[in-house]
């Protein structure tokens, strides 16, 4: 019994039943498949999170974002600048209590280098309904290449709890043809 010492004193020399060995072999092989699947996707898949990141002071990140906003703002919406940066450029999205700044307008099927960082606490970048979810930290500039393949209006929701105004931290992203 599992509640008493093993009935065979030399239990480690008992042979293992075939059905158990078979299952162990299947489970182990499945583990290897799942392990190599992640590596395979880095080569063959199109959805991999970038490993490019830098330490950055919040005010430096804010300056870079402001430079982009000054140059490429096309209109305003509810007090938020809507920025249409050129394809291929570095675009910045600031997370802070409790807003995303600015609103980005991107072009479909064009690549951008998106920078994410927080000015204060941790936030969560959740692009909906695409459902891309990335953690945003203060002091780190996460840089990734994204290529929107659908046009439309998307929501950016904060999905890392960041205090009382957390549920108001919602913004938009536009993708135009």
């Amino acid at each position: 019994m599992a509640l008493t010492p093993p009935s065979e004193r030399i239990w480690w020399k008992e042979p293992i039943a075939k059905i158990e060995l078979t299952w162990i072999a299947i489970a182990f092989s499945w583990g290897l498949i799942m392990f190599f699947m992640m590596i395979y996707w880095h080569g063959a898949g199109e959805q991999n999170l970038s490993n490019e990141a830098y330490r950055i002071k919040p005010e430096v990140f804010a300056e870079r974002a402001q430079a982009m906003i000054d140059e490429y703002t096309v209109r305003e919406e509810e007090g938020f600048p809507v920025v249409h940066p050129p394809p291929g450029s570095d675009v910045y999205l600031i997370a802070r209590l409790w807003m995303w700044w600015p609103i980005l307008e991107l072009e479909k099927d064009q690549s951008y280098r998106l920078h994410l960082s927080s000015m204060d606490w941790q936030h969560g970048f959740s692009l909906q309904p695409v459902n891309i979810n990335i953690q945003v930290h203060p002091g780190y500039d996460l840089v990734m290449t994204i290529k929107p393949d659908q046009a439309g209006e998307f929501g950016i929701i904060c999905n890392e709890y960041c205090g009382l105004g957390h549920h108001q931290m919602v913004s938009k992203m536009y993708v135009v043809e």
Partner: protein
Amino acid sequence: MASATDFRTCPNTGLKVDLTAERLIKANAVAAIVFLAIGGLFGILVAFTRWPAVHLLPADWFYLALTAHGLDVLLVWIIFFEIALMYFASAVLLGSRLAAPKFAWAGFALMLVGALITNVVVLQGDSSVMFTSYVPMRAAPSFYLGLILFAVGALIGCFVFFGTLVVAKSEQTYQGSIPLVTFGAMTAAIIAVFTIVSGAIILIPTWLWSYGLIANIDPIVYKLVWWGMGHSSQQINVSAHVAVWYAIAALVFGAKPLSEKVSRMAFLMYILFLQLASAHHMLVEPGLSSEWKIFNTSYAMYLAVVGSMVHGMTVPGSIEAAQRKNGFDKGLFEWLRKAPWGNPAFSGMFLSLVMFGFIGGISGVVMGVEQINLIMHNTLYVPGHFHGTVVAGTTLAFMAMTYVLVPLIFRRELILKSWARAQPYVFGIGVAGNSLFMMGAGTLGVSRRHWDITFADAPLPFDYPGAAFLMMGLNGVSAILALLGGLMFVIVIVGSVLAGRKLAPDEKVSLGEVAGTGQAVAGYGSSESIRIPGTAVLVAIFFIAFVLYYFVNWKYLSEIWPMS
């Protein structure tokens, strides 16, 4: 010291039971259930607030209740119960005196004081920082202090457990190797030490930081080390509830492990690899390499997952083998059909086994894939997953074990037996609903830890799909069932402990089909051929579900925007 220890003899097993150990088991189990009740009530407030049609609490109370819910059930209830289990698996199962009972009481007191401090601080309202308390968000200093005291108490409990193993060995209270259940508890205790040390490494500096004595704590380092505690503590649960599965299979059926070697190796995989799980929380963070993420998130090529998959066969397999020996040998599933489904210890244990595997286990592996995490991180899929592991898996297993502890340790007969019979089903179905509907909402993108998914007072609102609202409603309904199941459990157990008929000192307890501790299974096992075709079919169904669900999620991933 040994001479000062009082023992009674268990009429069921003939084991000598150290009365001090028994009192400590009772104290820890009672504290556990009190905090389960408190944490469960906070949980129902959370679920009713997230039900858009009800939207019970205002925002500040919602975040407060969510913080308290996480702390009380994920940490306090489970660790108290695990300490009780450790003392049971060491002192009682080995027939030994408990090492250093005064330290054990001191540990208990520290845990209690720590848990109370943290609860009070959270209720004061300026520490609604969630269970995870990610820096640089700051709680009141005593929030961290309470957690530290609780952890120190738990660490003392682990060392009392190790000490008891040493005492039992040197006083030769048992022959040969320790029982498998004790081995499982030892696995839990070893992981607990790692867990608590991780907690100390991060919580002590954070405590000092909350006073302003340390200027800055890096948020990524905090998360990495904090989850060395946060996730590893869930691995304590896995080891402990797997030990409970084996224990109940033995108590109810007299089941014997198919192979001691295989089951122990599977536990060893937990010790060696489960601590890597901190990476599960770091898959979409800046500053870590993909190599690091892939190795760690897969527990080094999924070796700890292999461990769980092995238990997933050997636990039902040992029950099937025992039942066939006991005469239920017809067809594939007579052993299962004629199992004691009215015995809450068995039904709770078996539901825990099935739901941990199918709901919690599969979703955890899928969510822990480096790339797939992109479509799940911080959505409601995450709480959906861990309600499948920690509630449907661990909590239900611990409830099942409590039905055994009441007669064996508290020496009381259960009251309200019909409630007890129904309880695992009511709670289990409710929790399965919570898990599945939260996972569904998460797949639709709904954020976790969010007060208002209608975004009514946001300047730039967004509309989640209608199906997401349906999922949240169904989650609320499931929470009502889970609440009922939880209340039934607390009423039956507290009522039995306070008012159940006292068992006479020599009165045997019937725990299932096989009276006593099931001497019916004299010997089967690795030395003879094992016939477990029913288990093979169940395992095949599990495996097919696992593979299909895994690749379906790669398909979902391939549909999001290209990114690199």
